[in-house]
């Protein structure tokens, strides 16, 4: 049985929504995919009934600050400061180093937390939400 450790993951991103590039110095990523539920309980029923509704996702990615510039990593950490964002940026979240097990979607960066703590490596936490289809190739 195969198991995987966190360091086998990775993140790729392209603000243009086409060819993704690896985000350097990624420490972690997470994605929560949620499905809304619709209550379809009939009047007089004993048990509640639910059916699935709209699906959406949100997540975060932690990146170490490396003073990178003029590359996709720099675009990624500054994406939140984009004036017009149509949600077309392409995200790929990988679960293993083979590059075949991934979650991909287009989405919008909703926040970036830039932080510096004495004695620790500086970290930027980028949060995002999905826009449209979420593809699970896992």
């Amino acid at each position, binding site marked *: 049985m195969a198991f995987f450790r966190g360091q*086998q993951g990775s993140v790729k991103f392209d603000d243009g929504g086409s060819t993704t590039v690896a985000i350097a110095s990624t420490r972690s990523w997470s994605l929560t995919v949620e499905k809304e539920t619709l209550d379809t309980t009939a009047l007089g029923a004993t048990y509640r009934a639910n059916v699935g509704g709209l699906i959406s996702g949100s997540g975060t990615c932690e990146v170490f600050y490396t003073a990178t510039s003029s590359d996709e990593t720099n675009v990624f950490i500054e994406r939140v400061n984009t004036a017009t964002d149509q949600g077309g940026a392409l995200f790929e979240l990988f679960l293993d180093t083979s590059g075949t097990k991934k979650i991909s979607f287009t989405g919008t960066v909703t926040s970036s937390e830039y932080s510096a703590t004495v004695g620790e490596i500086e970290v930027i936490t980028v949060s995002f939400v999905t826009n449209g289809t979420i593809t699970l190739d896992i």
Partner: protein
Amino acid sequence: MAAVNLNTIRSTIEGRLATELALSPVIPVAFHNQPLTPTPNSSFVQCLVSFGNNNFLTMGGTTGSSNSVIGVIVMNVFTPKGVGPGANLTIGKRIRDLYNRQVVSGVHFDPPTGPEVVASPAPEGYFQTQVRLTFETFEDL
């Protein structure tokens, strides 16, 4: 990018101390696995560099990833016995200032601890203090 060269890091650390202690007043210094026969009633320094924890820093496989390499430097400062701590602390300050919060060739030095007086000097016949500090460097694969 390549795996970290431990001797390059060691050279950065030891070279910095050797250069400083070669300035006037010159203080003999011995490093790991080196002999030193001290002159009686004189001062000398022993510098011991050890590598410790290595940790995952970023995601990725054997390429395009980074690790944290942490180590410790222990420096024993020996000065003549029976004449007070002044000369010893003067050397201790030189060493402390040399590394305190410095970043040299990618090696990040933390604030030093000490000089702390060592109750039982080794070798005997000296007044001994110890300056210790940790350092961190980053391995880019």
